[in-house]
């Protein structure tokens, strides 16, 4: 990749480089049927070649009929990302031979996609940034090749279940400058897709695929450097690492006096490096031309408006509303709006709890509820558990009325996650009600002071932290059902007064 003949003696070996990154993202749309036929779209965990028909098998004479839901989803994505939705768009044929492409061409969109422009606001290390989009278009997915090698020969099996699934391709402008930005962009994009409920966009399942165009240039220079396309990343983390490696590699090539070759490189997850796959000279000529089997699409304003009317509140808007409506910090609001389902569960719980309980409900969701869900998996939601927003609402009420202590609340929630019982019933059945009688607590405090002369002595000799031990002893005796502040003040009163 570095040839000595190309050494440029004008290269400044101490130059500070800036990376320029653009992404091409493919997202599978969660439609019921495939893009151009009525086959079930789902292919994950399906028997190979069970969701196929003459159309998605590319049999002679078969014709595509556009899936209106896929078009509506693409336009919804475009509206959510602030794209222009042109009145006229069309499908084109992209020609290239490959065994996974059943017709020998892919129906895609070339020069008149459904969505143009647009942007996505992201935050990297607390800094707001904007990533502009070139376009979003709709196309069909290919079949899957399953490569086999039984020792005697290497061959490939074809699973056509994925063939003809709707695939949305989103192309960004070269607006990003680090792997972290690319990763933040993808996270935000996925969240938006999930809010819209048009895609799950799980990269590990191939529902979101991402190629990165990476180039570097001396900081301050206007002209872009030679770009390299990086492929084969299968997680947000690998996208970030692949980009970071590629930036480093290019900087090193330039530092050694080499030149960047325009090429496609594949990321190798195991070693964290990119390797050359093909150069620009070998690139395909796709011979795009308008798809004659599908008349051009004309979208009137009413159709676009009807799609817009079906869109939910988006993450940024919801976060801002949560901050003002529920007096939450930006971080709290962000956590609560991370997924559409969690944000909706939160609001359902707030409504169920009645007025004034938004904050304790929020703290439960951000704290204990999140902890339980994380144990179930990174993207687990409340609906997968026996706990409902009503549980959380009731528990917040118990806490607010000091009928349970914070410690007991954790215990109650753990039981609820186990059994689905309502918090009040759990407290009642197990006698977990907070001890609110100060006399009873004071009596325990007196006994504990009696039983721990060493700690008392430490406290009185100025080691004030010793009180923590005594609080713990009282709490244990009260089985967590006493309020820690009350315990602490009662202990202090006794110790300071010398009794």
């Amino acid at each position, binding site marked *: 990749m570095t040839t000595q003949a190309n050494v440029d003696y004008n290269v400044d070996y101490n130059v500070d480089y800036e990376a320029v990154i653009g992404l091409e993202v493919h997202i599978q749309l969660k439609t019921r049927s495939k893009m151009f036929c009525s086959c079930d779209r789902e292919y994950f965990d399906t028997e190979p070649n069970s969701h196929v028909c*003459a159309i998605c098998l590319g049999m002679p004479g078969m014709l595509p009929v556009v899936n209106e839901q896929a078009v509506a989803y693409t336009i919804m994505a475009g509206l959510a990302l602030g794209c222009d939705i042109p009145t006229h768009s069309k499908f084109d044929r992209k020609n290239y031979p490959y065994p996974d492409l059943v017709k020998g061409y892919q129906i895609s969109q070339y020069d008149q996609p459904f969505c143009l422009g647009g942007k996505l606001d992201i935050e990297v290390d607390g800094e707001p940034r904007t990533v502009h989009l070139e376009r979003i278009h709709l196309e069909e997915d290919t079949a899957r090749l399953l490569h086999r090698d039984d020792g005697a020969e290497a061959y490939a099996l074809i699973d056509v279940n994925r063939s003809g699934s709707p695939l949305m391709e989103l192309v960004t402008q070269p607006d990003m400058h680090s792997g972290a930005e690319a990763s933040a962009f993808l996270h935000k994009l996925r969240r938006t897709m999930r809010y819209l409920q048009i895609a799950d966009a799980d990269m590990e399942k191939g529902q979101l695929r991402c190629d990165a165009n990476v180039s570097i240039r001396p900081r301050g220079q206007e002209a872009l450097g030679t770009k390299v396309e990086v492929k084969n990343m299968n997680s947000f983390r690998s996208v970030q690492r692949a980009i970071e490696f590629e930036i480093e590699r290019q900087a090193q090539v330039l530092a050694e006096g080499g030149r960047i070759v325009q090429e496609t490189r594949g990321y190798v997850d195991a070693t964290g490096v990119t390797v050359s796959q093909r150069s620009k000279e070998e690139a395909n000529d796709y011979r795009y031309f308008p798809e004659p089997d599908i008349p051009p699409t004309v979208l009137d304003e009413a159709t676009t408006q009807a799609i817009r009317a079906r869109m939910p509140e988006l993450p940024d808007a919801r976060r801002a509303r949560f901050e003002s409506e529920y007096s939450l910090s930006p971080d709290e609001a962000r956590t609560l709006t991370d997924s559409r389902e969690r944000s909706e569960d939160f609001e359902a719980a707030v409504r169920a709890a009645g007025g004034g309980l938004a904050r304790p409900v929020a703290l439960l969701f951000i704290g204990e509820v999140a902890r339980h869900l994380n144990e179930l998996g990174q993207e687990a939601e409340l609906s997968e558990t026996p706990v409902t927003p009503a549980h959380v609402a009731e528990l917040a009420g118990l806490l607010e009325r000091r009928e349970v202590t914070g410690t007991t609340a954790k215990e109650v929630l753990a039981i609820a996650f186990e059994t689905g019982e309502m918090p009040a019933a759990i407290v009642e059945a197990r006698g977990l009600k907070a001890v609110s009688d100060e006399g009873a607590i004071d009596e325990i405090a007196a006994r504990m002071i009696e039983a721990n002369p060493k700690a008392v002595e430490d406290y009185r000799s100025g080691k004030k932290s010793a009180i923590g031990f005594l609080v713990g002893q009282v709490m244990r005796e009260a089985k967590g059902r006493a309020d820690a502040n009350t315990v602490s003040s009662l202990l202090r009163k006794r110790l300071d007064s010398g009794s």
Partner: protein
Amino acid sequence: MAFDPAHLDRTAHEHAAALRAGDYTATALTEATLERLRQQEHLNAYITLTEDLALRQAQEADARLRVGEGGPLTGVPVGVKDLLSTRDVRTTAGSRMLEDFTPVLDCTVVERLNAAGAVTVGKTNLDEFAMGSSTEHSAFGPTRNPWGRDGQGNLDRVPGGSSGGSAATVAARGVPLSLGTDTGGSIRQPAALCGVLGMKPTYGRVSRFGVVAFASSLEQVGPIGRDAEDVADLLQAIAGQDQMDSTTAPVPVPDFKERFARGLDGLRVGVPAEFFGEGLDPAVRQPVEAAIDAMEAQGATIVRDIALPSVRAALPVYYIIAPSEASANLARYDGVKYGFAVTDGLSAEDEMARTRGEGFGAEVKRRVMLGTYALSAGYYDAYYLKAQKVRTVIRGEFEAALEQCDVIVSPTSPNTAFRFAEKLDDPYAMYLNDLYTIPVNIAGNPGLSIPCGFADGLPVGLQLVGRPFEEATLLGVAHAYEAIADWNRQAPPPVGTQG
């Protein structure tokens, strides 16, 4: 109920009347038809005879007829071009590539034919993938025209193409009706050369679903028959919007015989000079001019000052658009999924290349290469895009011309049926056969070829071109012309077991 073989010379509507009157059964008619088709085997009009299927359909037709449910096609034998997918009946497209390919479903047109109670007797011969004007480009050998014999009395003329089998079998009184497809004249030109009627409906009038695709934006399925009434009845059965073909038009289907009572009085007949220029065989011009005079004598107004200046560009436009679409449409024949396959190649690419090399004939390869070239990077604007612009101009000229007249008439083909091999090695001479039919596909208008006389003992066709979706006008003119000239009732000398 003995069946007189002389009845086989009847038209479809004559059969339909006899069947409904109980003069003979569909089964008897079908058995006699199959017997005649076997006698006419040396015409090579069929690639596959579907005798069992035909007899089964005949029995069903008889059951319907017995309860008085017969329609105009119930029990009527029909030949189907082997480009139309038929469930469980191999559909070869005249190609070695699909020699053993059996579709899993019927094309929409055949489905409608079945619903009408027609008896499909077999799959007719054609130029490979409908690319040709003589049926010599069939992997299953050429079809013979029942007209025209050499000194020894042998049939020595081509039937035209690509629907040569469909035209020849109707001309030879094998069947009263057949279906063809017309991309640049493939119904009208063989109809003209065989002395029968053939219609290319308006683009979008008839479903293409299940029709092995050659040039998607140009082709239509259409009827071939021996009088206007039969052609109208068959068109009636197959026409109309189809949910499976997005390019079918949401236009109501009229009664295609609604103009049969009108006559020629007051009809404005456009005669554009562009269709009577260089290249037209004077022997063909003579009967065409005579037919125009006969129409005038019946009260038609001849309009000679219409202009179609851009039709001179129609042939080059066609030979850019049709091969471009074909290059994509035929890309699916790669030996991976179905059809002919070379399986002992050195690699997947090698097998794909050799599958095409051995599976496709010379004319198909020529057009795939033409189309691939025209769509290539750097040539697209100069060829494909320019061709589409000229196409728009040609369409506009037809629209303007048909404001000044009700039908445009011309010769269907500049020459009569030529001898085998006469033009096989000269593609351009072969292409010129479609000089007058191609502009109609470029514009999308309906076109009908009707017999209008003979030149040197060979049939001559008159082409009628109408406004989009006004097939009924053309059929009305044809019906009126039949009343004054009986060219359509001229039969070739009987085709015995030896020509």
